[in-house]
C-alpha cells in the first residue's frame, strides 16, 4: 500500500484550520491526527486517574490502558517483552538516564564512543562524564556524509565501555547501519545505544534484529503528544542498573533507613506518569501501523528522490547528505551559497564579509510568508555544523502528509527568494 498524503492530510485538524500550511519541519516535531487528539481527550473524559495504585474501576482501566500502550510499543519495535519498555519524556531524557546510571560504573580513562553526526542530546549527557575523567571519542564522518565504519571499529578498544550512535542523522538524513555497529560493539563487549529519534517514526525498526542493548525515541516525532518518549533496554541490563529518578511508584519498600526498588520497568518510572501521553502514543502507533512502516519509508524515499530531481534548478544550492535515497531518511539540509562559520580574524580582513549567500534564517522567514514551514539553524548539532564548514543550514523534512506538489511549491518559493534577495 502506498501513502496517499492528500487523504491522510484530512486526518490532521491543523491542516483544515490552516489549509495553506505546508509543514516541512517533521524532523523537529510532527502534527497530530484526530485519532491521537481524540484518544487523549477521551481519556480525560472517561477514565482519567492515577495508575497502578487505585483499586477503583477508572484507575484499573487507566492502568490497563497505560500498560497496554507499553505492550503495543514493545511489539512495535520487536522487544522481547513489555518490561523492556520504559516510558520517559523524550529521547533526551532516555539518553541522560543512561549516561547517569551507566556512568556510575565508569572509571577514569574509560571511553564512550560517539559519532561526529550526533544530536546535542547524544553528546552533552556524555560530556558531563568528562568531569570524572571519562574520555569521549568520535567516529568520523566521511566526505560523502556517511559514517566511517572503519574508524568506528578502530576506535572501539578495550576501554570502550559504551558506544552511542544515531540511526538516522537529523541533519544529513544519513542512515547508519546500526545492526553492524551494534555487532561491532557486542564483539568488543561494549554497551550499544541507538538514538532512534529519527528512525522509529520513519521506518520499521526491530530491536532484536538490530541487536542493540538500548534504543531511544520520542513520541512527538511520530504523531504522538510531546512529553512521552521511550527507552528500550535489554531486560537483564535494566535489571542490574541503579535507578535514575527516585520517588513514588519506583520503590519496593521504604523506611527511614533506606529503600528497595520496584521491578523493571517501573523502577525507572518515578512519580506520576504521563498516562495520557502513553495513550496518545498508542493511538499514534495504531495510525502508523494502519499505513505500514514500510510504506512510510517508501514515501519519504520518493520525496527525497523528487527533491534530488529538482534541486539543481536552484543556483548555488548546496545540499548536505548522501546522494543515495536508499541510504538516506526523509531529511534534506541545504544552503544557498556559502554560510560560513564566524571567524573573527578572517571576518575582520574584509569589508565585504557578508556575501551574497542567503542566510538560512532569512530563507525560512521568506518561505514562512508563503506558509511553508522549514527549519533553519544548527539543528542541535553544532559540532557537526563545524565539520560541515557551515554555521547553519536550512532543512526540509517531509512526512506522510506531504506530497510532491508541496515540494514543488517549496522550490518555487526558494527560487523567488533568490530573486528577491538578489535585488
Amino acid at each position: 500500500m502506498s501513502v496517499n498524503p492528500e487523504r491522510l492530510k484530512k486526518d490532521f485538524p491543523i491542516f483544515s484550520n490552516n489549509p495553506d500550511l505546508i509543514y516541512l519541519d517533521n524532523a523537529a516535531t510532527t502534527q497530530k491526527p484526530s485519532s491521537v487528539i481524540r484518544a487523549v481527550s477521551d481519556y480525560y473524559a472517561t477514565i482519567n486517574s492515577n495508575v497502578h495504585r487505585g483499586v477503583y474501576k477508572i484507575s484499573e482501566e487507566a492502568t490497563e490502558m497505560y500498560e497496554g500502550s507499553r505492550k503495543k510499543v514493545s511489539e512495535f519495535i520487536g522487544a522481547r517483552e513489555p518490561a523492556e519498555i520504559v516510558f520517559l519524556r523524550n529521547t533526551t531524557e532516555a539518553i541522560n538516564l543512561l549516561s547517569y546510571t551507566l556512568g556510575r560504573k565508569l572509571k577514569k580513562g574509560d571511553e564512550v564512543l560517539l559519532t561526529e553526526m550526533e544530536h546535542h542530546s547524544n553528546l552533552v549527557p556524555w560530556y558531563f562524564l568528562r568531569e570524572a575523567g571519562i574520555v569521549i571519542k568520535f567516529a568520523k564522518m566521511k566526505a560523502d556524509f556517511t559514517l566511517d565504519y572503519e574508524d568506528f571499529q578502530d576506535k572501539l578498544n578495550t576501554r570502550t565501555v559504551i558506544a552511542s550512535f544515531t540511526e538516522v542523522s537529523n541533519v544529513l538524513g544519513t542512515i547508519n547501519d546500526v545492526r553492524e555497529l551494534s555487532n561491532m560493539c557486542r564483539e568488543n563487549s561494549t554497551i550499544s545505544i541507538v538514538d532512534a529519534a529519527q528512525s522509529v517514526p520513519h521506518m520499521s525498526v526491530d530491536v532484536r534484529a538490530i541487536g542493540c542493548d538500548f534504543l531511544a525515541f520520542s513520541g512527538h516525532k511520530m504523531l504522538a503528544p510531546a512529553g512521552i518518549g521511550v527507552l528500550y533496554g535489554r531486560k537483564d541490563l535494566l535489571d542490574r542498573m541503579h535507578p535514575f529518578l527516585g520517588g513514588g511508584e519506583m520503590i519496593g519498600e521504604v523506611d527511614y533507613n533506606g529503600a528497595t526498588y520496584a521491578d523493571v520497568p517501573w523502577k525507572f518510572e518515578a512519580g506520576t506518569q504521563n498516562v495520557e501521553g502513553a495513550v496518545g502514543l498508542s493511538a499514534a502507533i495504531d495510525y502508523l501501523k494502519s499505513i505500514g512502516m514500510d510504506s512510510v519509508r517508501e514515501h519519504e524515499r520518493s520525496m527525497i528522490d523528487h527533491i534530488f530531481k529538482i534541486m539543481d534548478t536552484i543556483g548555488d544550492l548546496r545540499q548536505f547528505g548522501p546522494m543515495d535515497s536508499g541510504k538516506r531518511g526523509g531529511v534534506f539540509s541545504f544552503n544557498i551559497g556559502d554560510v560560513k562559520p564566524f571567524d573573527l580574524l578572517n571576518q575582520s580582513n574584509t569589508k565585504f564579509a557578508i556575501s551574497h549567500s542567503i542566510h538560512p534564517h532569512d530563507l525560512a522567514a521568506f518561505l514562512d510568508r508563503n506558509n511553508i514551514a522549514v527549519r533553519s539553524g544548527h539543528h542541535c548539532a553544532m559540532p557537526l555544523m563545524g565539520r560541515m564548514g557551515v554555521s547553519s543550514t536550512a532543512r526540509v523534512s517531509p512526512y506522510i502528509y506531504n506530497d510532491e506538489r508541496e515540494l514543488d511549491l517549496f522550490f518555487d518559493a526558494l527560487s523567488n527568494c533568490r530573486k528577491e534577495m538578489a535585488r
Partner: protein
Amino acid sequence: MNDEVYTEILLDHYRSPRNYGSVENPSAQITEHNPLCGDTVHFSLKVEGGKIVDIKFVGQGCSISQGAASILTELVKGKSVAEVQAITDADFLKILGIRLGPNREKCALLSLNALKKAISTKNV
C-alpha cells in the same frame, strides 16, 4: 523582502554594513552568539570621557542580526555609556521598525545585548 518582516533600511544595512571591521586598541570588545541559531556579532569600541567615540562590528548571520548590528553602531556613536545602557529592548525594536515573534526577536536583540555587556565591564 517583505516590509512586514524586514524594512528596507534594515536590508540596506545588511547588504552594505556600516562601521564594518575592528577598532584599533579598543577600550572594549566582545563576541556574542545567539545560541538559538548561531548568529554571531563582534563589537570593538573606543570609549573616551564616558562617550563611545568609535565603534565597529563584524559578524555572521541573518539579515536581522547583521543589519541590526550595523544600525546599532550608527545609533550609539557619540552617545554616553549611560545613554546606551538606557536603550531598552522595546526602544531598539522600534528603531528597527520590525515586529517579530519571540524566536526571531533574539536575532534582533543580539547586538544590543552584546554591546551593553561590553560597556558594563569595569574598564570602560
